[in-house]
């Protein structure tokens, strides 16, 4: 235990933000910064904030160091690493009073460009680089490594961790390891001489990371698809979903290459557009392969007609929707949860679809695999609803797990033997009363089980008909099937507040990152809320019951129109007045500060204070 700590020292609890120029090679140094802290056993929540552009525009990397393991953005910045003159004013303004500003002091700046309440840490990075390197690219790249060295001194980050990471990152390229080490040491030594190191904000080794891993949700989803047995992927590049398909390719190369022939146990097609990608998924799934597409809102919009076909013709299909700022091209590199309604009710006519709502990469992996079982079991499209925050950011998250005893559930597929034995086959016949009929794969039996798949109405034996009663019979069965889905999709996670309360809060997906912390803070303010984290749609009865058991329930979501609230009101027959929306939709991930402020404000209106226990107590 250190006894000399000043009262303003904040160990493992601060926010560093890097303001960079896109394409300047900063990403790699910034990533090392976050990972070195993780290697010290201290959790971080790291986020790239990037433009829809390849080179030259501003980009930021925000690292929240949180010994408590809070995964949301906190809001505010303690140390700004201001490397982009373009965004200087905005970046400087974002620093918390009493915070620090680290910048390249090669060119002197007038005092008016600084703030009185912020400590300025100037380091002549350009001058150092120009004196050390002759090559222009090296001057640029090593500038990043030099500031990394400086930060290691300023924040007390163990240099040996960075050193080890250099070794891992540039394995086999000794020259690169060496030059990175030198640049790093140069920055570190310079800072040690120039500044009073370490700053009051600093890192100390801890054991709070444990077994957890550091990965983005798109990679997790792709790995989930591998474990879920997907063999066909069809996609069209669209931020923020592209890296999901690319990850699938990488994992398949690793895990799905036939050891004998060297050939592929998978097929990935970059389609000509999203209409084609969903068409391919539907064709493959119809033919008995597990197939998926990865896309975002604009892509789902293009898929609408096909989704109606898949719903009505009952074809399994898995869609990963990595949601982004919408509508239209919207904010392609910003996050939102604004496609709930367009997915839940995708397509013309009476349609409803299954949604899975993972909260982090670990759950994305699990649900990514489960989606294929559900799609096959229910013979319908299943959406895994990620967003940019989960999909493209690296999260500190629980390790992935797989039960080797688990078998893929291919659903109700009638085999050649069953057909041969004379089992009655009606493609749309509800034999089991759960609304789910049997299907056959094409090519199964020479004379039995063949049927015609169509988007037009049909009878229970798949024969074309425009008879009203047959149509209604089929539509009713589809509703029964959707009822069955309620018991199959992941149930909500319900947790009681520390004290009995008449108020509750609902959230889902990436908002979870801000919720744990928010609830702790709200509790300190005397606001106690029972919690329900939604994990899937359709909603099971527990969703209705939770709301019914409370006077007011806050619904936290990242869109303008309170889409989850609409979905709940519509599907659960809830009085909208009971549901109070907390909406965050500026494209940045929702923060605890925002949730605490909004809920506290609204709670006062409803007088949400803990219930006094009645009776003797």
């Amino acid at each position, binding site marked *: 235990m250190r006894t000399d700590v000043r009262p303003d020292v904040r160990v493992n609890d601060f926010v560093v933000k890097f303001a960079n120029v896109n394409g300047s090679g900063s990403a790699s140094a910034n990533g090392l910064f976050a990972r070195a802290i993780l*290697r010290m056993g201290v959790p971080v929540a790291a986020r790239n904030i990037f433009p829809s552009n390849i080179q030259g525009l501003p980009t930021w990397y925000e690292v929240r160091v949180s010994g408590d393991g809070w995964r949301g953005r906190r809001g505010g910045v303690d140390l700004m690493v201001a490397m982009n003159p373009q965004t200087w004013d905005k970046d400087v303004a974002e620093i918390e009073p009493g915070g620090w500003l680290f910048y390249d002091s090669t060119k002197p700046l007038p005092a008016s460009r600084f703030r009185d309440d912020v400590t300025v840490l100037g380091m002549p990075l350009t001058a150092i680089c120009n004196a050390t390197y002759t090559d222009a690219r090296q001057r640029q790249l090593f500038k990043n490594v030099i500031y990394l060295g400086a930060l290691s001194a300023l924040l007390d980050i163990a240099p040996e961790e960075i050193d080890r990471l250099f070794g891992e990152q540039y394995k086999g390229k000794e020259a690169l390891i060496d030059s990175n080490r030198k640049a790093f040491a140069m920055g570190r030594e310079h800072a040690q001489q120039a500044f009073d190191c370490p700053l009051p904000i600093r890192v100390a080794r801890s054991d709070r990371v444990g077994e*957890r*891993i*550091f990965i983005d949700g798109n990679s997790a989803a792709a*790995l989930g698809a*591998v*474990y879920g*047995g997907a*063999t*066909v992927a069809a996609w069209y590049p669209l931020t923020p979903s592209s890296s999901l398909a690319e990850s699938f390719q990488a994992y398949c190369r690793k*895990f799905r290459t*036939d050891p004998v*022939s060297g*050939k*592929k*146990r*998978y*097929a990935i*097609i970059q*389609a*000509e*557009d999203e*209409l*084609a*990608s*969903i*068409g*391919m998924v*539907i*064709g*493959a*799934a*119809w*033919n*008995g392969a597990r*197939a998926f597409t990865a896309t975002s809102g604009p892509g789902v919009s293009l898929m609408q*007609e*096909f989704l109606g*076909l898949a719903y009505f013709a009952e074809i399994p299909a898995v869609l990963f929707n990595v949601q982004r700022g919408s509508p239209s091209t919207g904010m392609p590199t910003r996050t939102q949860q604004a496609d709930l309604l367009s997915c839940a009710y995708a397509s013309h006519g009476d349609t409803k679809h299954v949604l899975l709502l993972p909260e982090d990469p670990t759950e994305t992996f699990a649900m990514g695999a489960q989606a294929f079982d559900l799609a096959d079991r229910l013979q319908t499209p299943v959406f895994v609803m990620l967003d940019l925050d989960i999909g493209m950011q690296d999260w500190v998250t629980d*390790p*992935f*797990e*797989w*039960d*080797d005893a688990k078998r*893929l559930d291919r659903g109700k597929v009638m085999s*050649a033997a069953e057909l041969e034995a004379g089992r009655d086959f009606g493609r749309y016949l509800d034999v089991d009363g759960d609304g789910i009929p049997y299907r056959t*794969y*094409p*090519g*199964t039996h*020479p*004379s039995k089980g*063949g*049927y*015609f*798949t169509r*988007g*037009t109405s049909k009878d229970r034996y798949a024969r*074309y008909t425009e008879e009203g009663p047959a149509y209604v019979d089929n539509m009713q069965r589809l509703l029964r099937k959707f009822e069955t889905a309620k018991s199959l999709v992941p149930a909500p996670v319900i947790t009681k507040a520390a004290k009995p309360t008449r108020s509750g809060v609902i959230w889902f997906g990436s908002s979870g990152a801000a919720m744990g912390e928010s609830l702790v803070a709200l509790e300190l303010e005397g606001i106690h809320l029972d919690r329900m984290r939604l994990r899937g749609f359709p909603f099971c009865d527990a969703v209705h019951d939770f709301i019914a058991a409370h006077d007011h329930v806050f619904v936290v979501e990242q869109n303008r129109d309170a889409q989850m609230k609409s979905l709940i009101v519509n599907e659960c027959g809830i009085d909208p007045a009971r549901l109070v929306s907390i909406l965050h939709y500026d494209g940045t991930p929702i923060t605890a500060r925002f949730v605490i402020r909004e809920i506290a404000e609204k709670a006062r209106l409803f007088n949400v204070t803990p219930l006094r226990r009645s009776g003797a107590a």
Partner: protein
Amino acid sequence: MTYLAKPKIHHPSLAKNSLGYTRRDYEGAISTLCAGCGHDSISAAIIQAFYELDIPPHRVAKLSGIGCSSKTPTYFLGNSHGFNSVHGRMPSVLTGAALANRDLVYLGVSGDGDSASIGLGQFAHVMRRGVNMVYIVENNGVYGLTKGQFSATADRGSKSKRGAVNRDEPIDLATLAITLGATFVARSFSGDKDQLIPLIKAAVAHHGAAFIDVLSPCVAFNNHPGSTKSYDYVREHNESVNFLDFISPREEITTEYAPGEVRSVVLHDGGTVRLHKVGRHYDPSDRAAALAYLETHRAAGEILTGLIYLHPESSDMHDALETIEAPLNALTDAELVPGNAALAGVNASLR
């Protein structure tokens, strides 16, 4: 999923193919199209071709878009799985199906509206990818099912039934298919089964994307004077480059021809296409010449039919993707799921 073919019991007098199937086993439901519609003749040609090819009907998957033409898969190969998808998007569904199981025969049936208008993009890309399939467009120059509007293959200057003149340039799907990388491209006429049946057989035997543009008059909306897709007009302007027959690998080649009369091309499955000379010698393996020939005949107002382009050393999408030989839909859990130990390795690499 191999299954021994079991013939149905039929009238003993019906002829059977080598698998024991009669022609009736390749039929489907009764057609609901207009009497005299060209599409019905194409269905009959498909039935005959598959019967003669000795392909078990259930090993064929037939896919279509939307239109009168796209309805026809109901009227042939009744024991095959069929998929009537959405308008203009059959190519993607077929591509997906072909990815899932490379062991079936894929037959795509579409219309000129379905393929040249709404579906032109998917038409283009399915050819580019070299999906192993037979893609037939039943080309009548109009949207039959929505009652006679011009489609994108209607010729400039041709007249609709109500007298409207088409002002737009037509899309020639055969020309397009060649430029897009289809490796078997033919054109035929629904009224010429002697030409069409062997073309379908050869297209099935071909490995890769095979396309047949079949002129198929719409008696309800496009069979009048002033139409360039009527029975009379097509008959009068039909100019065939060759006349062919297809000999399956099991058949013995018996007839002998004088040198120069016939060119034989052996296809992927061992079958042989014999191209009989019509007029001057035509070499369908020369892509540039094929395109030029199409263009010359188009300029002369003639409808060029026959096997226009054939790339005998073709490959398909699976070859390009390097997928394993086994159908992807038949892989077992053990072949698909890496298991928990592998996952532990992934976890370790992420710390």
